[in-house]
């Protein structure tokens, strides 16, 4: 009970979420080749390293992705096997792109820290570029042409997730991704590690004291 309360205070990350996009229309589309684009930007315009996003458990539905990014800017770490991507706000603009051979679906687990940027939300977006070098147009209301937008907490606002499909007239028509929960742990924050350390120290201290009388 104490542990759960403590972790809650420490600020566990945004619950891990499985995002799945039906990419079947991409397989036969003449708008390819396609590029996956993952982006995490500082809401306040600086580089305060408030938050980070981890993408893991990728599934490609028979397709594949190049293990080496075609473009990488800012705080990007790519793990080739199993394929995973970490976006950390070491810069204002953090972006990574991969060549993508579509299969029937694309899925990945999203997890993030949820530190509050008081100026504007740190924002993660996922988009797909077609062979024009531009995003496939989507209905994203922010004008981002992204299939996934996650706005991390800012001010009094919590996490806001916007899932979008292709816009009318887009080069390829895709439905919005679906969202499901995951049992995978979310990204621990530095404060989480501190909490674990404190808890461990407390347990050691308690053990050394021996049983209470």
């Amino acid at each position, binding site marked *: 009970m104490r542990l759960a309360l403590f972790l809650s205070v420490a600020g566990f990350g945004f619950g891990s979420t499985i995002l799945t996009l039906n990419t079947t229309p991409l397989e036969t589309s003449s708008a390819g080749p396609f590029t996956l684009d993952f982006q995490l930007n500082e809401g306040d315009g600086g580089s305060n390293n408030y938050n980070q996003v981890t993408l893991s458990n990728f599934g490609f539905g028979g397709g594949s992705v190049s293990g080496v990014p075609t473009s990488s800017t800012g705080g990007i770490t790519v793990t080739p096997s199993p394929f995973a991507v970490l976006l950390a706000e070491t810069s204002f603009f953090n972006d990574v792109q991969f060549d993508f051979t579509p299969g029937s679906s694309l899925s990945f687990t999203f997890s993030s820290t949820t530190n509050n940027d008081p100026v504007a939300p740190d924002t993660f977006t996922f988009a797909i570029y077609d062979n024009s070098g531009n995003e496939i147009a989507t209905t994203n209301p922010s004008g*981002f042409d992204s299939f996934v937008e996650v706005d991390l907490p800012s001010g009094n606002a919590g996490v806001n997730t916007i899932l979008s499909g292709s816009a009318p007239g887009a080069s390829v028509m895709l439905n919005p991704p679906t969202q499901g929960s995951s049992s995978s742990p979310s990204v621990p924050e530095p404060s989480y590690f501190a909490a674990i350390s404190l808890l461990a120290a407390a347990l050691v201290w308690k053990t050394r004291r021996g049983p209470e009388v």
Partner: protein
Amino acid sequence: MPRLALSWTLLLALGTGTAIGGAPSGEFLFVENVGAGLGGIWGVDVTGTNFFAITAASGFGFSATTPPYPSPDIQEFSQAKNNGRIGFMSLMMNPNDSARIYVMNGDGTGVKQVTFHNPSVSFNQSHSEPSISADGSKIVYVNAETIAPAGTMGAGGTNCSGTQTASYWVVNTDGTNPHVVRQPEFYDVHCNKGAAGEAVWSPDGTKLLVADSLGDFNSPANCQYEIAVVDPSTGNNIRTLACNNTWGITQVGLDWSPDGTKAMALVTCGGAGGEHTCTQWVVWDTSTWNVISTIPTPSGNDEFLTRFSPDSTMLGYYDQNVSPHTMNIMDLSGNPISSFSMASVNADPGGAAGSLVWSASTPGVLQTFTLGVPSIYVNSCPNYTLYIEPSEFNSSGALIAHGFTSANIDMTSGDGASIHVDGFGNAYFNATRNSGSGTLQLSSFDANSSTIPITTDQNCNCQVSTSGVTVARGGLRYVASSQQQFLQTLTVTNNSGGAVTGPINIVIQGLPSTVTVTNASGTTGCTSSGSPFMTVVPANGSLAAGQSASVQLDFRDPSLGGFTYTTAVTSGFGAP
């Protein structure tokens, strides 16, 4: 510099320029040589009698208004046959960048950038050879910042993915949807490949006539240097019209007749595997693609910038191999019709591939129009400058607003105050009396507006800071399809408990000088003077208690390094 955006209806009618009795008509537009082979756009009627300038050579209103101009600017251009819009390539519009593509009206007003640097490439390269479609809605150009897609393989299995190429791209003239239409297919073992050269639109916009080195140099025919017809929707080669295995290819003589029935190209000949030894004009029938005529050029192995006449019955070409240089007109069999010297001007239309237009318009009668009448407010703060927005077109090329940024603006106010508009649209207001009202009149190309109500304010009223109104910012994303800008949504919420009357503006304060808001409503005169502002609620609107309104900001941050700013909300009568 605060801006006042004016919008009004304008009906446009172009002269037909039809040849009467077989005589040439219309005018030639060309690049004026200001010393480096480049400059502004000049024109001359087909008799060679009347020369005139359409644009200054640099700065478009912030430089000299008469020649000689201090620095070169426009390098290549083309003109929409249906509405006179001009697409052009300029290097000096942004000295910190390579050449990019711009559009403007046929009278040199309404300049707008439509292509931008691709920050993902290793080397900053140019966009060039702009050819605008007949309806003025899109431009095909050569983009040397194209990245070869994944899976691009050279001979012997060399992986050429990610290498930089010069490919054909198409962009709408409002700057939207830039996309590649044709790029190199054939690479050697060292990833060497051909390059896009020049393309021109068929009048109906369904085909491109291209001259380039994108052909298959691995084939026995070695047709790397090709004249071809291409489908712009797929990039596929519909038909190869000419090819040779000599070195190089000429690009300067390439055109599609305005009636769509004929195509013309300057084709190299001779050389037998070496450098070509001659050039000749070839004219094709576009219904059968049979050759109508083959015309040897007068000076052998040289390039001649050549265009069809507006009625499609003649060819005009510029000859820089004779002294003085001449403009020549011939029929489609090569029989001379007329010629005149270009000695009276320092013309250099041969200096670039796309820098000659045979326009149907006649000098002095570019267009006629009817004006709608807006009502405007002028704040007469000291040194306050009224900027009249340039003309704007929609994505179909139809004129939707005109700012009268020509040299023919005439303004008078009724209370003794004066408004001066310089030759390129900058308007300066000097108040000589107290606040009052009057009228102003706009004119351009022999058409006058009705008088327009004008209110002047000697007291320099500023909008007030609006308490109880909050601004919430959305997140930021770098969006490639939005001309590679960072987009952000700002939402204004009225928590004051009562209605707030428009106009309501958000002032963007403290933005780094390297970052610009490209869709700002204007620049402030009062609050953080010189800062960009966005109008969230217009003058005739209001924001009720508890109500919100949103606006999208487009930030251009070439360094991708990030930017901070603060906001202020102003409302009410006066300048933001």
